[in-house]
């Protein structure tokens, strides 16, 4: 079984027959492999119309160029639908990644948005906690001020106590309450 599948990725030492490719139905009743198509394209043996290969095919133009043994192995395990490569048609990896990202832009954008939202949530929680801490500090401060105010109020009250002031006024300032007969009554109109 393994041996049968391995034919799917044959290494062509010789040029593939153009007719064979054009026919679309290879002699051994298989689809043309990517390598075959690729090779044919490079060599210009596919007529210009071949550039308009169906999208389905285009997607599959990801060739294997790792060591033959490994390629063999891959071929065994995977039915040549998606094949991995460190090169893409000879292009470097980075543009390839970008291309991939661009292709699935909505998904990646969602991932980014979710990450940002998560970060924002963390920031918000942090802010809330800081604010709660600040609010509590303020309310504790308020309570303390309230207490201080009570102390000061008590102090002011004892200093301004009526009988004390009356006593001081009488003793130190020799003040006295005028007698009722000494009072002058002014009647306001």
């Amino acid at each position, binding site marked *: 079984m393994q041996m049968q599948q391995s034919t799917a990725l044959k290494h062509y030492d010789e040029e593939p027959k153009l007719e064979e490719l054009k026919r679309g139905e290879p002699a051994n009743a298989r689809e043309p492999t990517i390598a075959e198509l690729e090779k044919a394209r490079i060599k210009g043996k596919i007529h210009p119309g071949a550039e308009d290969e169906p999208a389905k095919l285009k997607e599959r133009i990801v060739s294997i160029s790792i060591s033959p043994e490994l390629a063999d192995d891959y071929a065994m395990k995977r039915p040549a639908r998606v094949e991995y490569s460190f090169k893409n048609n000879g292009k470097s990896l980075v543009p390839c990644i970008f291309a991939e990202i661009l292709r699935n832009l909505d998904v990646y954008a969602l991932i980014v948005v979710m990450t940002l939202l998560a970060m924002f949530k963390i920031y918000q929680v942090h802010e809330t906690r800081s604010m709660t801490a600040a609010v509590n500090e303020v309310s504790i401060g308020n309570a303390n001020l309230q207490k201080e105010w*009570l102390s000061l*109020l008590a102090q002011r009250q004892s200093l301004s106590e009526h009988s004390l002031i009356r006593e001081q006024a009488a003793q130190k300032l020799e003040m006295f309450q005028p007698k009722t007969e000494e009072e002058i009554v002014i009647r306001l109109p």
Partner: protein
Amino acid sequence: MSLLKNAKGNGNLQISYFRIGIIWSVLILLMGFLITRLLWIQVLHPDRLIAEGNARVVRNYHYEPARGLITDRNGKILAISVPVKTVDADPKRLHENAVADDPKKLSEIAGILDMDPRELAEKIKDPTKRFVHLKHYLEVSKAGKLQALGGNGIILNDSYRRFYPTGAANANLVGILNGEGEGIYGVEQSFNSYLTAVASTSVARKDRYNHIIENLGVIKEGAAGGNLMLSIDNRLQSFAYQKLDEAVKLNNAQSGTAVLIDVRTGEVLALANSPSFDPNDRNHFDVANARNRAVSDIFEPGSTMKPVVALAALEGKDVDWNEVFDTRPFIVDGKMVRDSHAMSQGTLADIIKYSSNTGMAHIALRIGPMRIMSMMERFGFGSKTQSGLIGESSGKLNANRRFWSEIDKATLGFGYGVAVTNLQLASAYATLASGGIKTEVSILRSSKAPVRTQVVSGDEVFRMQNALETVVAEGTGGKAAIDRYRVAGKTGTAKIAQAGGYGNDYMSTFAGYAPFLNPRFALVVVISSPKAGSIYGGTVSGPVFREVMSRALQLYNVPPDKP
């Protein structure tokens, strides 16, 4: 995977499927166990973990607001809760911190706590103890320094100390708190639930710096204590207390009370008691001086009740102002009824003016006790006033007694056989002052219109007022007269009932109001058992009445009504 060559064996490693299977199953089992365990402790039975987590970050926070203020009618504070710290020590920690055996630090701490250093050292010498009480009330300002000295060996807690800035002057009226912060005596007790603050408890999450980062909820809703504004005017109160106290000491009396009422509103402007006590000094607290005698002590009113008895007679037309009474001493049930001021005959006005017991005895015998009792009840005797003060007595009228001997009927005419409180008497004189309109007394400053009821015909009351003015102007109450103001009042000198009869102790009373034409204040001064010479209400209580009343008239800018 691809590096692990399969059984074909063209790689470096050769591992059989069986072994791979074993590895896989072990790994899966381990992962499975791990995941199951996680599921178990985090999803199915998460309580313990949650509890453990909360135990580290969730705390209960208590906060106790201050008890409400008690102020006088002008906002002067009579009672205030001052924040303080209670100080306790943890001797074990003090020993660990090397404070317990540092004489310098110990003497500093003792200095802050106002203690003897040796006493402090004695208290904390046992290093196995974890809690020793050091001081009840420490000023908040000193707390920081103490904490710095003692570290975690000193335990400080928030508390309040009740402070009474006016001291003894208001002590009997305002009352005090017990050790648990509940009002005992006075207004503190009467309005305890209103004044009391409720501590709140809330749950919150804290971070490792002990900041509260999330308020989780309130377990118990707290409430600040309500502030109470009394009808008392502290200026008059302190003055009345001072004068009363002086008079009590001068006359070597047992006790004295003075109640000043605003005739128009029924508000009590001053309510002084002597002897009083220092509410801020609990070391010398004497229970006997704590009660508010003006409302709790009852006494036989004596002659001050004569106007009420006379009004009862006048109302029924049993007597009129022109009738002349025989006021010579006479004997009822073998007991002599006589007067201190001898006269042979007189009209009702003379009887009031010179406070004739014989004249009143004749009137009382004529109309009978029930009518007198009914009039007394209408004046508010025999039932508590609406003051709401704690320990208030309703007095005693004995209206239900079945048998009245003739002497009882006779003496009822001059105020014996019934017992009243000073507040009731003051309220009755306020009623006389306002022409027979009784206004409910109030110890709280009231914003709403007072409840007023006409209890007796105004015309007779106005005639009675004229008689009462002559008491001060010409009769027994001369010492209560105030220059430029017309004062009406009545003296009272009643023997104090003791076990088995009446002794030689007297209750000297002066009850009156001023100014005569447009009455504003009613004042009753009662001095119990004067022992330094005079016993007469006019002489003992009259001067206090004059001084307190003139101060009230001056303070409230009441225009003089005498040219």
